[in-house]
């Protein structure tokens, strides 16, 4: 299992190699990429901040949960922090499984949970300002043990 919060560029092949297994017939890889627009605003770049040690802990918990839930052979979750330009990868996940159905369904579940629970924040920087994104999607969070 490869779990990492890093300021270095994320390389897909690293995640794929980490989940390789002779029993795997399917590998699903997801890249969250910096888009040039959000909610109608033109984005110049993003700045990601994390609580790195806790982020890795929560990423590992979610990865272990996904293995139990979807029977994955292995899982890799990497999140980048710092300044990210348009087109750069902020989130990289890879899952390996016997068959393709779980790889798609479980990969999707994994990304959703990471976006809900991992302590990482993104600041959007536009031509004329900037703002932390702590939007409605994030507000839906119900952390384990939270009231």
């Amino acid at each position, binding site marked *: 299992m490869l779990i990492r919060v890093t300021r270095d560029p994320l390389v897909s092949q690293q995640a794929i190699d980490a989940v390789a297994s002779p029993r795997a017939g399917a590998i699903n890889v997801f890249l*969250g990429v910096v888009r040039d627009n959000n909610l109608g605003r033109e984005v110049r770049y993003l700045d*990601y*901040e*994390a*609580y790195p*040690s*806790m*982020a890795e*802990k929560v990423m590992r918990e979610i990865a272990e949960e996904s293995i139990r839930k979807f029977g994955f052979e292995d899982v890799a979750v990497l*999140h980048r922090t710092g300044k990210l330009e348009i087109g750069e990868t*902020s*989130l990289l996940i890879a899952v390996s499984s016997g068959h393709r159905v779980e790889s798609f369904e479980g990969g999707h579940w994994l*990304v959703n949970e*990471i*976006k*809900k*629970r*991992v*302590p*990482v*924040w*993104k*600041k959007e920087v536009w031509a004329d300002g900037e703002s*932390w*994104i*702590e*939007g409605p*999607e*994030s*507000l839906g*969070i119900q*952390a*384990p*043990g*939270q*009231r």
Partner: protein
Amino acid sequence: MDGMEITVLLFASVADRLGTRRLALDVPEEATVATARDLLLERFPAIEPFLPNLLYALDEEYVRVTQPLTQGATLALIPPVSGG
């Protein structure tokens, strides 16, 4: 004087508003997360609008506000996350 000292970590919008990402906080014996939160609000009134949306993590674990603090613990104020 039987107090404890904890470390408080701030992130994103909250850290920017308070101008710090890390501070030491003295709390009384038997303090909970809620005690710390109220002390922070007293010392930094600017934190008030953020409180309704915060979660709390104690030593890297999400906890309820009724969770007791311990000497040397690290309390993180977690604004709504937006990773991915």
